[in-house]
């Protein structure tokens, strides 16, 4: 169970003749019911990784195990429809994900494909829309008339409506305002705690996931170069540098405070709010 990638490699071949490396010996094991943040510089292979999760991209080499499915590179058999239902994927660009005439039809697309009745599907859509905070009035609109933040919410809702067990989101908070961003993070985190779902989030903003993510995965050039908790990452800021990422200010501050107070960075929280509380506690001592 869970998710496991064993030495998975994949090359993009369709542009011209020179293959472009997507994943290169990608090795990762994840448990269910957790929130996992996926970080990496642009072009490092984050989106490529996510698209392997529900078989949209099939590995050239290696074995992928996910839930109780085994996606083998050797026999490129059919992807069972149930995998697509159980692993939901929110694409990086919502405008590339939506296609129906109205937002409502788009949200219904998944549930109906997975064999829900009309009523069940409509109910799932209503719940998903309210979960992401999408105005019900917008359901009758064309998805392409929405603002980019609304479109983003619609894209997330469209995937949530199918009630997947594993939810993989490619930069879901890009183009969202800070309030909706925080809200979405909180709700996604709630899914892992309340319903035992697994949530993978690709993001460029370490600080926004620092408070929520249980685990961090850092990718560079199609390989996993770090997998651990936020506290371990605070510890190893050179990993972020090596991956071409910038440590958020809270982490840099944690590092400085740790040096000044002479404590182990591993004892310190990584997100800014928790760090402030921790520091206040230290001052009172």
């Amino acid at each position, binding site marked *: 169970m869970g998710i496991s990638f064993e030495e998975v490699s994949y090359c993009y071949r*369709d*542009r*011209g*003749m*020179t293959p472009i490396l997507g994943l290169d010996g990608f090795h990762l094991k994840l448990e269910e019911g957790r929130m996992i943040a996926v970080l990496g510089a642009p072009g490092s292979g984050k989106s490529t990784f996510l698209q392997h999760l*529900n078989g*949209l991209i099939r590995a050239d080499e290696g074995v992928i195990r996910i839930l109780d499915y085994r996606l083998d590179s050797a026999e490129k058999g*059919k992807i069972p*429809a149930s995998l*697509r*239902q159980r692993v*939901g*994927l929110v*694409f990086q660009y919502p405008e*590339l*994900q*939506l*296609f*129906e005439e109205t937002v409502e039809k788009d949200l219904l*697309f*998944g549930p109906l*494909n*997975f064999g829900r009745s009309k009523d069940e599907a409509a109910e799932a859509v209503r719940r998903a829309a309210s979960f992401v905070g999408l105005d019900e009035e917008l359901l009758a609109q064309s998805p*392409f008339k929405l603002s980019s933040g609304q479109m983003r919410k619609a894209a997330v809702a*469209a*995937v949530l409506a*199918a009630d997947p067990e594993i939810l993989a989101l490619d930069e879901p908070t890009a183009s969202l305002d800070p309030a909706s961003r925080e809200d979405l993070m909180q709700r996604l985190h709630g899914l892992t705690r309340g319903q035992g779902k697994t949530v993978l989030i690709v993001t460029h903003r370490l600080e926004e996931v620092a408070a929520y993510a249980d685990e961090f995965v850092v990718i560079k050039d199609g390989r996993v170069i770090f997998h651990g908790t936020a506290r371990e990452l605070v510890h190893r800021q050179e990993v972020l540098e090596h991956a071409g990422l910038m440590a958020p200010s809270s982490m840099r501050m944690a590092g400085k405070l740790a040096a000044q107070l002479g404590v182990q960075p591993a004892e310190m929280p990584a997100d800014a709010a928790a760090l402030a509380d921790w520091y206040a506690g230290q001052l009172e001592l």
Partner: protein
Amino acid sequence: MKRKIILGRYMEGDSWIHRLDPRAKTAAMPLFMVAVFLVDGYAGVLALLLFTAVVIRATGIPYRYYFRAMKPLMFLLLFILAFHILYDAGGGKLLDVGAFKVYAGGLEKGIVSASRMALFIMLAAVMTFTTQPEQLAQGLGSLLRPLTYIGVPTDRLVLMLGIALRFIPTIFEEAERLWKAQQSRGLDLSSQPLKEKARLIIALLVPVTTGAFRRAIGLADSMEARGFRLGAPRSRYRVHVWKRADTLFIALFLLPVAAAALL
């Protein structure tokens, strides 16, 4: 959607054919067409096939890409062949089974006609594989330039052609990403009966077209926002310099013309 249509795509490369002036390549095309239409026997076809094989070799792109380019049109080629074999009488009788008769003349005509088509596709593939669409349009534009003097709006034509060429891959990409988005949310064509399959594929065409239009409008806006005006003077990104290789390339295409005329 694994097997993509590749005719009309540009393949990156660094062969001398890639580096030729696009004007030379567009000028060679009509020459080759003349040769293709002059050809009327096995010997000529063979000569042209040989010539094309050499040109393809020089592009550095494997032969199988050219076969793939031809694949969607295979049916048409077979149809042309069969048509001539079945309906053209002439020359000695080769085969006679009941109502089914094959004549040497019919066979030759069939093979020549199908090869003409195949040759043409292969050379078109050489052009598009080795030349970026904008360059191809620009090359054509330079060749057509003299027509401006008699009032033909070549600028507009070239822009239209350039945009059309630019959008062929976009439309394929559009179809592909929609396909991905729908599959990701559970669309499964293979489990559907044939009729439903056809309906779903046709249903795909609507968002593909609207998507392509939306992108075209976005593109036009972004071009305008960056100061592009139709007909306004504009400096070229790549100024082409006619080199000796370009002259040689065109001269090279006199070979098939001569071969076709003589053989």
